[in-house]
């Protein structure tokens, strides 16, 4: 490998993309460890192993590409994790902080590499846990199991060898031995599960039995034993520390025709509960190496990294995932081509129609028509395929947010319970990217200003830990994302005061405002920077920016809040942006496209059904009042004379708001690719873009959100604050 030469930009891209996968994998693992720690559960040793492996992979990857600094950094982190998994370094919230900060260091380094193309341009500092220096004389608490430190008294001698047998101990790696002792200290019985495998299918069968045994307890190791008579068979012994009942284990081992052998019986016979001493247990090693003392430094004493020869431990250089990372702009280009193909299709259709009128060519016309239908179906498939590729689960974003929440809440000294649901809901990649900043802002606000201090919460009879719940689900063509906290809620009185003072709301308007309208005041630009700033302090961006960003994506954000109980933000987003089915309508002879995801239905307009309510035309639709917005006058078209006959009403619905858009006629339905308008044209303020409708013609795409908001803002006095 050309590790010393400076790599090509392409190689750097490849490196960055693989390193990015590592960062995501590692942060997921660490967040799971965090969950374990916070639930006061035993940290799953597999997670620590996984983190160790992640760093190891990054180390290899970095040195392959010649990023030596990063490789050294990864090496130090790897050693730290090695110490943690061997129980030499305590794993607590502070250590985890340091581990998480090291991800940030890597992310920064990767950004730097991406911007400069220089691989070794930056100094990387290993983050130290806050308590690192002090923890030497620290008393042992009954925290997480891996955190166990030898007490300061003389180590309790114990002959593990006698219990487990020398033959077993000798083949164990240092880590496995540590896990063995830890499990024995917990009073768990130790079993050997011996099963026979055919050489041909051992790969899958071994995985199967391991999978079945995993829930039973901890698999310390598995070893082949050469006692089988059959040359085509191999016997494997799995060393298992049992957490469940023996009967359950028996059931599993019967399923696999395995033999069960009790090596060390459970708690009664062995360790006492307070038996906290962890001693380097192997008698063979005791002579050569000093007992592991309180090693809390991050830099390990020895430089070599222990990679055990066991099959499970060997680290493959093949990349872990089956995924391909693609620049989203390539997908956009692909989607554009598909759109152009759609135009080609309509041109062919036209030729086909003409061919029908040619005498004697009917057979050809029919054949052509059939081919076009086939073409159309394939085209639809491609389109759907591309859309599918663009979709990513919101979980990706939620993971990032979880890290922020953890950081913010620890900085503020608040304990936050973060509940996520619907992480597998899929949304267009672009939307995810654009949404993460607004969501981050909402969540920060929730933690900073929503959730009260633990003391105050206790006084109010709330649980000391605050809760922030992030929920995503799909509803028709929209994805709803809710952020709910159980904090103090929005003090609408204060906000109203500030709004009136800043002149955004008049006293008269204030008098007739509904609670929902009051809560929505937080989205007005002037307000969040006015008096409320003292409460919603120097965050830089205000809630108005959140709203603007979300609106720009064709979404809406609404807030519900109850003082003292909590606040809930609901963001409604379209599932995709790239291509959208639209209803084509005509107004004053021009064609406009209305995205179908905002259209509830289209009905005939009978002039006699129209009523005037406070300067607004309305009609009654299934018992509900529907305000009408005549698009011609909305567009400032001057059309004298009586209203158009046979007008239609397109019922546009967004959230809870509905407006009947009055158009001259319905033209049809079509999937449209929305192209943006330049700034000069965007001034119109009610179009999200234009789309090709064939014959070199463009149709304006209505920005239904903007139209509805402006309509309510100008027609209804009490909601003048909206928009």
């Amino acid at each position, binding site marked *: 490998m050309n590790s010393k030469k400076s790599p090509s930009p392409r190689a750097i891209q490849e490196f960055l993309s693989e390193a990015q996968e590592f960062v995501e994998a590692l942060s997921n693992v660490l967040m799971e460890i965090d969950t374990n720690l916070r639930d006061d559960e035993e940290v799953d040793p597999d997670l620590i192993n996984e983190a160790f492996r992640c760093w190891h992979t990054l180390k290899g990857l970095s040195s392959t590409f010649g990023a030596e600094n990063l490789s050294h950094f990864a090496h130090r982190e790897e050693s730290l994790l090695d110490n943690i998994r061997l129980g030499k370094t305590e794993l607590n919230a502070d250590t985890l902080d340091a581990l998480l900060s090291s991800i940030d260091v890597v992310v920064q380094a990767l950004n730097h590499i991406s911007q400069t193309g220089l691989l070794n341009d930056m100094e990387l500092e290993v983050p130290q846990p806050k308590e690192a220096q002090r923890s030497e004389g620290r008393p042992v608490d009954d925290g997480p199991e891996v955190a166990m430190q030898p007490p300061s008294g003389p180590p309790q001698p114990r002959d593990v060898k006698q219990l487990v047998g020398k033959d077993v101990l000798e083949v164990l790696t240092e880590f496995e031995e540590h896990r063995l002792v830890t499990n024995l200290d917990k009073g768990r019985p130790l079993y050997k599960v011996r099963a026979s495998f055919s050489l041909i299918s051992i790969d899958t069968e071994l995985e199967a039995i391991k999978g079945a045994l995993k829930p039973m307890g901890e698999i310390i190791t598995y070893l082949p034993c050469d006692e089988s008579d059959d040359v085509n068979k191999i016997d494997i012994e799995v060393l298992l520390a049992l957490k469940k009942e023996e009967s359950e284990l028996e059931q599993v081992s019967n399923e696999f025709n395995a033999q069960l052998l009790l090596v060390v019986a459970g708690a009664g016979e062995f360790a006492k509960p307070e038996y906290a001493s962890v001693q380097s247990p192997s008698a063979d090693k005791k002579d050569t190496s000093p007992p592991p003392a309180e090693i809390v430094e991050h830099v390990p004493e020895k430089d070599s990294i222990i990679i055990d020869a066991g099959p499970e431990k060997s680290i493959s250089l093949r990349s872990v995932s089956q995924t391909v990372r693609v620049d989203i702009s390539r997908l956009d280009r692909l989607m554009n081509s598909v759109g152009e193909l759609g135009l080609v299709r309509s041109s062919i259709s036209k030729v086909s129609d003409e061919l029908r009128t040619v005498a004697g060519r009917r057979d050809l016309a029919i054949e052509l028509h059939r081919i076009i239908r086939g073409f159309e179906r394939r085209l639809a498939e491609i389109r759907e395929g591309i859309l599918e590729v663009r979709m990513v689960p919101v979980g990706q974003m939620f993971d990032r947010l979880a890290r922020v929440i953890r950081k913010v809440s620890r900085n503020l000294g608040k304990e936050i319970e973060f509940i996520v649901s619907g992480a597998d809901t899929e949304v267009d990649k672009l939307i995810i990217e654009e949404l993460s900043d607004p969501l981050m802002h909402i969540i920060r606000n929730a933690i900073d200003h929503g959730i009260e201090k633990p003391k105050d919460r206790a006084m109010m009879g709330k649980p000391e830990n605050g809760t922030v719940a992030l929920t995503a689900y799909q509803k028709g063509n929209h994805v709803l994302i809710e952020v709910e906290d159980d904090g103090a809620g929005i003090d609408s009185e204060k906000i109203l005061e500030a709004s009136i003072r800043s002149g955004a709301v008049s006293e008269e308007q204030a008098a007739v405002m509904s609670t929902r309208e009051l809560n929505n005041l937080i989205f007005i630009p002037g307000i969040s920077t006015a008096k409320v700033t003292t409460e919603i302090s120097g965050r830089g961006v205000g809630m108005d920016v959140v709203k603007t960003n979300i609106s720009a994506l064709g979404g809406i954000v609404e807030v519900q809040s109850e003082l003292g109980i909590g606040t809930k933000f609901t963001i409604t987003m379209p599932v995709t942006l790239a291509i959208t089915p639209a209803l084509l309508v005509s107004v004053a002879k021009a064609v406009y496209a209305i995205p179908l995801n905002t259209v509830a239905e289209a009905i005939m307009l009978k002039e006699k059904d129209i009523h005037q309510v406070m300067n607004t035309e309305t009609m009654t639709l299934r018992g509900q009042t529907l305000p009408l917005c005549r698009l011609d006058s909305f567009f400032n078209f001057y059309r004298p004379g009586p209203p158009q006959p046979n007008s239609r009403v397109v019922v546009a619905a967004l959230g809870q708001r509905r407006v009947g858009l009055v158009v001259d006629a319905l033209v049809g339905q079509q999937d449209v690719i929305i192209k943006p308008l330049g700034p*000069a044209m965007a001034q119109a303020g009610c179009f999200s873009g234009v789309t090709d409708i064939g014959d*070199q013609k*463009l149709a304006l795409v209505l920005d239904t959100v903007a139209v509805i908001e402006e309509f309510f803002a100008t027609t209804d006095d009490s909601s003048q604050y909206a928009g």
Partner: protein
Amino acid sequence: MAAGDTTIISSRHPTSMLGHTRHPASVQPVSSDEPTIGFLCFNLGEEEFGVDLNLISQIVQPPPVTEVPRTRSYFIGVVSIRGGVVTLVDFRQLLGLDPAIIDRSSRILLYNTPREQFGILVDRVTLVRRVPASTFEENPVLEENPVTEKVIGVVRPDKHTQVTIIDLEEIMHEALR
């Protein structure tokens, strides 16, 4: 010329391919040693104007126009040119004249800015004029009309013709304000 056909101006062929050239004979022979300036010249009504040739990337016949309501009156609408969305500017209105009527001689000059592609709608393109730099009259005294402020100079390619040179960049910059 079919609707939407495009003509790419090249400085090597100053007069080639321009539709409806009105005075083909008026191309000035220019001695090769003296530096010349190139202007793309067009008519708004009877008056002939010129803009810096380098600013215009293409001249096209107007495709169907999609009007965009609720914008300034001189931003007429959008047109689709080679798959791109182009903001159409009625140059007559922008310079304070009556609104343009699109007919067979109308042309769109494409002018690109980093944020938006503009199409400048003019009544008729005359030709590319190359004049010796020395004949460019800067800041001439002209009779007062809406355009006066934007005039940066005058060229007189022959004694019957006067072309008013205007600063397209400045005009478009102000139009967007």
